[in-house]
């Protein structure tokens, strides 16, 4: 598998991978801008700009591309992460041209109509309010805000309500003009094409776009945490949650792979593989303390978090679960893991990796994300780097990273249900 990797004269990076297992192509355009680059007062701006990109251009007015791509039997969408913003379309191979035309056009011609901007403000506020309905959203927000005082990871991708209410159309347009440039973007295509022909198509659509200096994103490094943080969130309801997070290195760091093994041992490998034989499943689920245990690290450009989240069963306290989790961590720090556990984690990763490569959409995403992380080989060498992890590495990583000084513990305390404010219609009300 040899990729075609190149850069157009305007700075646009291009990575092409031929995969002929099905007659489809996935085309991705990634911009090197995410919520980590947002300043206070403009939190959520990257996500809002992403929404505005679906509001049309002169060439493709709003709704035209939704229609064209659905007619072609394709899927297209976009998402904003902490680290980047990505647009993608997966289409039958003979219909991919529409995606190239659309992305080249809206990289420079999005209109940001003032009325559309106001209409989208309420849609995004509704999106945030939908999340606010879930108590765990508030817990997650509080844990992040506690973990990052300075770095842009402190706010959620959707942004703070105060900023969503106050940002202007001009703020959004300035952000768009600054970061939506060829020099700040990357194209990845994976699927049933001839790479040279695809490159010619890309050159024809994107080659004439203006050459601009790559913008310098706003980033403030997070200073070292000075001790364990604890945060409590109270929301109505009956279910308690516990979140235990530790500061960990960025995803390109060798230690990140050692922590991946630790997570696999504690909560399972994920990626479609169940976690019923993981240490924390046994310790929390088989004892009836928890209804669920999840763990994981997001792939991130800057040092981020390893998070464990527990849903507690009625009758158990946060302290019950916290004590068990910390005991399991201490055991790894003291005794390491077994060769059996290490081998299992590596085999699970290999399987999960194979499952993820079935779809060209997944493959294109992972390649694009690797580039955004700053290491083009990150995805293709993932298993190699994981397989290089030793038993000693795992123990040392636990001793180095899973310590109180790096820890943020979040408690969601349910305040119960106010019966006077809860009712369900039993009698049906006939309106007409």
């Amino acid at each position, binding site marked *: 598998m040899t990729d075609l990797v190149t850069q157009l004269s305007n700075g646009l990076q291009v990575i092409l991978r031929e995969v*002929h*297992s*099905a007659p*489809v192509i996935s085309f991705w355009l990634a911009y090197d801008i995410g919520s980590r680059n947002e300043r206070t007062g403009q939190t959520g701006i990257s996500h809002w700009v992403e929404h505005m990109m679906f509001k049309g251009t002169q060439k493709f007015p*709003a*709704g035209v591309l939704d*229609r064209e791509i*659905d*007619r072609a*039997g394709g899927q297209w969408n976009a998402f904003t992460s902490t680290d980047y913003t990505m647009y993608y379309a*997966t*289409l*039958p*191979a003979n219909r991919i041209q529409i995606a190239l035309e659309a992305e080249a056009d809206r990289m420079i011609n999005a209109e940001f109509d003032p009325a559309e901007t106001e*209409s*989208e403000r309420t*849609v*995004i506020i*509704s*999106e945030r309010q*939908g999340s606010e*309905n879930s*108590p765990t959203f508030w817990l997650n927000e509080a844990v992040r805000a506690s973990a990052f005082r300075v770095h842009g990871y402190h706010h959620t991708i959707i942004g703070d309500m105060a900023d969503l209410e106050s940002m202007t159309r001009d703020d959004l347009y300035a952000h768009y003009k600054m970061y939506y440039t060829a020099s700040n973007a990357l194209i990845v295509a994976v699927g049933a094409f*001839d790479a040279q022909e695809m490159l010619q198509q890309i050159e024809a659509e994107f080659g004439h776009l203006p050459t601009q200096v790559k913008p310098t994103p706003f980033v403030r490094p997070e200073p070292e945490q000075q001790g364990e943080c604890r945060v409590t969130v109270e929301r*109505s*309801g009956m*279910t308690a949650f516990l979140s235990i997070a530790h500061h960990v290195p960025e995803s390109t760091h060798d230690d990140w792979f050692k922590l991946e093994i630790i997570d696999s041992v504690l909560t399972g490998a994920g990626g479609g*593989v*169940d*976690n019923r*034989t993981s240490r924390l499943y046994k310790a929390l*689920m*088989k004892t*009836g303390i928890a*209804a*669920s245990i999840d763990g994981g690290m997001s792939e991130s450009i800057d040092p981020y978090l390893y998070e464990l989240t527990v849903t*507690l*069963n*009625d009758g158990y306290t946060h302290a019950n679960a916290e004590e068990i989790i910390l005991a399991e961590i201490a055991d790894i720090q003291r005794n390491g893991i077994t060769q059996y556990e290490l081998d*299992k984690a590596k*085999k*699970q990763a*290999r*399987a999960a990796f*194979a*499952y993820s*490569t*079935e*779809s060209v959409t997944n493959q294109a995403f992972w390649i694009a994300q690797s580039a955004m992380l700053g290491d083009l080989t990150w995805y293709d060498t993932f298993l190699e780097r994981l397989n290089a992890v030793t038993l000693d590495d795992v123990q040392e990583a636990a001793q180095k990273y899973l310590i109180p000084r790096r820890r943020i513990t979040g408690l969601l305390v349910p305040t119960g*249900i*106010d019966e006077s*404010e*809860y*009712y*369900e*219609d039993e009698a049906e*009300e*006939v*309106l*007409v």
Partner: protein
Amino acid sequence: MTLPRYALPSTETIHETVLQNGITVLVYENPAVESVVLYGSLLAGSIYDPLDRNGIASLTADALLRGTTTRDFETLNSALEDIGAELDTSTGKHRMTFSGRALVEDFTVLIDVLADALQNPIFVENELAEERLKRTTELNFAHQDTRYMATRGLRKALYPATHAYHYSTYGSVDSLQHITTSDLRRFHSQYYRPDGMTIVVVGAVSAQIATAIIADALGDWQNSNQSDLPIFPDLSPPQDLIRLDTSIAGKIQADIIIGTIGPSRFADDYIATQLANSILGEFGMMGRIGNVIREQLGLAYYAYSRLDGGEGAGAWSVTAGVAPENVDLTIEKARDEIRRLTTEHVSAEDLDDNQAYFTGRLPLRLESNYGLASTIHAMIQYNLGLDYLVGYREQIFSITRDDILNAAQHYFDADKLIISVAG
């Protein structure tokens, strides 16, 4: 360069074998990947639950992977997780389904565990207690979830208490407390049987080898117990405009679900209804519903319609999440679009767009092993025939604007709906 040719799954590429005990095995070879997916079902869904103890079918399916006569919980799950394999069971209204995947080299292990779980489960009290506790926590949490509660309101109002669809497949906080291991054992003994069972395999394994492995593991399975099909009352759609409100403290947004009873997958007008639903709330940015409620008015992040029909008549509904002050306006706009769909022909352009959408999306649906397996399974489940996709384009483009209007009028009436609001 010359690109390879791609063919739709059909009788030419799907290898079908019916084992002597009635299990239908279908294999589609896909050498392009290094994994194998299996997807199958048997007739053991929640319609077989006693009405006062809903959840038995679902708990039985869950218990399959909690221990067998030769493997305890740890041994059974280690057999799968040690090799990165996945095996899940789930329960729908009519069928218990299982799906799994493994690296090619581990396919035999996957089938061996599946066969053991289906044939030899033990139902022990501590495992049931663990699952009961987990579900109780999940349901208590769900009772604070606006979308869950709005959906629950619709379900309870659309289907009478004498019909299985009135009840949650997952069980209720109350029903879960009364279900015993004896219930699960009895359910398994009666409804888990090879006749009526389908297994689809897709991946880098030859049809001959895959079929032989399955025959070896499941070919001797027999169950002579009677499996009675329950009888339910005829369903009738709402006769009025009925609104149900569920108030939940501390919520910032309300969920609205507006619906009626739609067609089953076996209905003659199912495809026309599917196209009508796509026009109403799916195509493009969530169809006409999305266009009005999200794009024009900015009321909601999500606003769409969906059709739930399967082997029985599921709901046809419109869903939106909005601020409490916009609930009434959203209901009004959604009803306007339902009324429009039932009183006006859709445009020729609308119909053509959606016909192109339905036929154009096949390559993406069939890209992954899982997509292939579930599609092939549906051909068996709904008696569509293994050449269904070969004639699919012709079928879709045979639908007319009259068909769409008739289907919409058959099921929807803007003045006879259940409106369930939670928030």
